[in-house]
């Protein structure tokens, strides 16, 4: 194709590639944005999920032209610049092209800086976009009516405590729609990770640490809760289902549970942001009275964390 043409008859590869690339990108980007965009996981069930979907779509707008560009170029090169059978000659000795190189560097730098700024703005304006922010969060919802839900991870089940309703603890995660929710995530043993998929919330549960994440549910529906940090034998089975209900349904459920579970709540330690299972004052007296100190009655003391 091109090997024997004289320089002035050689097609303008650059113009061809540029026009093909612009055409493909200009058609694929809107196709993606309008057809696939609204269905991108995790969906729009909560404010943080919606942020994540938007970010994904914006990134895709940039990623799609990049991928198209490189693959198109490779395909073009393999079509037009293949050596013909028996052709043993070399190609032209082109060492570089300062203009192309500088343009490439400038464009990639600009794109990347834009993406970093965009991501930061999203974090700032969307209360941390559902990611766990640690014990001292800096991006918080601007509201006085935040529902606090403590998520306790232990090997290998999730439980949830509602401190604003007497601190009852349950394996059922019920959340109201429309109210900002603050998840206080902690663990009683190893590192777990609370991932409420449809809510777009993920926060690691570390022992002795309170990890705070925010979201606001915008639609009713079921929520899948999975552990997403390998925590031992049943990590793969450590999942649960929760649901988002209307605000009034939630209030009645919470008040009802507070009453029904009152006897259980009396057994529990007082609500705290973290729990140290080696420190159980009420048990101390009983064990000393009974004279029990090791397995067959005991607790883990800080002198020997491996022997009950």
């Amino acid at each position, binding site marked *: 194709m091109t090997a024997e043409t004289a320089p002035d008859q050689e097609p303008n*590869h650059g113009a061809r590639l540029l026009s093909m690339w612009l055409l493909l990108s200009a058609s694929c980007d809107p196709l993606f944005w309008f057809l696939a965009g609204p269905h991108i*996981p995790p969906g729009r069930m909560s404010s*943080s999920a919606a942020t*994540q979907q938007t*970010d994904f779509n914006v*990134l895709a707008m940039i*990623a799609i032209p*990049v*991928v198209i560009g*490189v*693959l198109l*170029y*490779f395909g073009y*090169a*393999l079509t037009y*610049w*293949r*050596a013909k059978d028996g052709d043993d*000659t*070399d*190609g*032209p*000795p*082109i060492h*570089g092209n300062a203009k192309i*190189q500088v343009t490439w*560097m400038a464009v990639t730098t600009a794109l*990347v800086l834009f*993406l*970093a700024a965009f*991501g930061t703005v*999203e*974090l700032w304006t969307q209360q941390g976009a559902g*990611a*766990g*922010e*640690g*014990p001292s969060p*800096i991006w918080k919802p601007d509201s006085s009516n935040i529902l606090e839900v403590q998520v306790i991870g232990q090997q290998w089940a999730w439980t949830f405590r509602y401190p604003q309703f007497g601190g009852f603890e349950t394996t059922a995660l019920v959340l109201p729609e429309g109210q900002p929710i603050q998840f206080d*995530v902690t663990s009683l*043993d*190893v*590192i777990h*990770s609370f*991932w409420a998929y449809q809510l*777009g919330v*993920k926060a690691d549960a*570390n*022992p002795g*640490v309170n*990890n705070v994440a925010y979201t606001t549910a915008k639609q009713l529906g079921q929520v899948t809760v*999975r552990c*997403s*940090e*390998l925590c*031992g*034998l049943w990590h*793969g089975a450590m*999942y649960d289902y929760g649901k988002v209900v209307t605000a009034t349904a939630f209030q009645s459920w919470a008040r009802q549970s507070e009453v029904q579970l009152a006897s259980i709540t009396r057994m529990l330690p007082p609500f705290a942001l973290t729990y140290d299972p080696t420190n159980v004052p009420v048990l101390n007296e009983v064990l000393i009275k009974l004279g029990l100190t090791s397995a067959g009655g005991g607790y883990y003391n*800080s002198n020997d964390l491996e022997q009950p």
Partner: protein
Amino acid sequence: MIEIEPGSVQQPGGGGDEPRQQPRQRSWWLRPAMHTALIGAVLGYVLGHWLGNYFASGYQQIASADSSDFPIVLGYGFAVIGWLAGLGVFNDLILQMLGKPVAANTNHLGGGLGKYFRYSLDHKVVGIQYLVAMVGYFLTGGLFAMLIRAELLSPSYHLLTASAYLEVVSEHGTMMMMMMTSVVMGPLGNYLVPLMIGSKRVAFPRVEALSFWLTPCSFIILLSSVLMGGFPTGWTGYAPLSIQAGAGMDGYAFAFGLMGISATLAAFNIVVTIICYRAPGMRWSRLPMFVWSMLTTGFLLILAAPVLIGGMYMILTDRTAQTGFFVNQVGGSSYLYEDLFWFFGHPEVYILALPGFGIVSEIIPVFCRKPLFGYKTAAAGMLGVAILSFFVWQHHLFDSGMDPDMRPLFMLTTELISIPTGFIYLVAMGTFWKAKIRLTVPMLFALGMYVNFLFGGVSGVFLSDVPVDTTSHGSFMVLAHFHYTIMGGLIFAFMAGIYYWLPKMMGIRLNEKLGKWHFWTMFIFFNSTFMPLFVLGELGMPRRVFEYARNLETLNDWVSISAFCLGASMLIFLFNFVMSTLFWRERETGNPWRARGLEWQVSSPPPPDNFAHIPVVLAGPYEYGDPNALPVADLNPPAGVISGALAGAGEA
């Protein structure tokens, strides 16, 4: 002063003796080799185990820990020492200490296969030892992957028990990440770097050989944890789960730390060789891209691997001596481990990626018959990636509860690192411009690497955005990302390197038809296996789980069948490799690719001392298409040129 017999390979410029001039040697089973190493290892393990029990028995807190970690760890340690002693690694040191003369090490001579089972100081022998070993480690890790995919065929029926599944997942991940750290630097780096820079040897042959012989120890120690119930933490080894785990965890920590030591030693040797042993005329601007990648990878290893070794050591002391580094209740922190691990872990993934870049940048000029476009850009890209890789590690910890102020910073640095990574594509695309592309098997694999790494790299940009990462972290999306970059990038490049350089290393060409079959099956089934995983991850399937949503079963089945086919494609490669090297042996002794690289200017395989005379380098290796370009080097420089060049300033 160490007395070394003249004519030994340890002397610069010294050549090896012809085989028929060697003095009669003792029988093969009496000389130190792998069989004596095995005996040493077994004896060492028994001694270490006994010592461990003896020391630990007096301490109540250690005795009260249920699994006997201390004897196991000491057993491993003494086993490694016994293995090395059995190989004869310490022989020369002991002789020197006693003031006796040290005989020349002739382990690299002789035509048979025996030399590959000995402690050899010839970098070419070490390179081939590494090559066979690395292929073996890779296939072993791949077998575990086949079991994982078999289990994931059904979301509810379980082929493996939960603990067996975790074991298999952890073994697969650790075997791959540990071993692939040296998959290019070991075989190709050690073999080719001296040839590419015009040197007769590496700077520290003993260190290089030691780095190789530690790898079988790591391999066996890691596999031995299966015998003890395995370890449940995955390759990341997060504390406190790793402190809680049973005896198999010690195998992980010890093997990984040992591999870290091996890689640090190998890197140290390569970096010094590149800096100090370049032939006259081998300026930095003429250095082959592959050597640049080895240099940058080496620096990353030297700076990052010690942090890994420290972290593994702390796991071991927490488990054996009940220290409290990572235990929250006594003032330690689970975050400490995460930070230490990922401070190593992020440079680690660039240690995996950079050699791949080096190989493909080396190969494409040869099969485009054009100079490498933007040489300085390519080198700057590698340097930029290496430097920036130390500033991004918190992106593995975005959801962990780390200080939220840090998040925009790490998002920025992670996005920035995609700029130098992108230079590789600029260079490739420029090299393809108006080229004369020949689709040989190495070129096919190089192209495959570029396509795969594109998907891997772009998905990395998605993951660097904190909101998107909040859904994707810990899911199959991340898994797809790193399999695309590491397997799609590094392993495809490694295959390209093997097909390209095996004629050089063994004087044998691999069967071309089988090679093309291998490429196409591997490329198609690789993409078919890992592309759906992006979708699976975004649909909510976390990593390392064996129960998943029922509606994801079809996609998982597609992935599993593709994975089995991918495994079969590896068998094609294995068949080709074994048959070509052992039976068909199609000779290829010259320069079959008509490449300009300095390594191709000597015979294939090269003579024992690489070059008859130290060459003087006259031009860069990528000067294709220029009829006025000088040959890459003068292999017979006139007398006095070398000493003159060495006496001159700034030319060493």
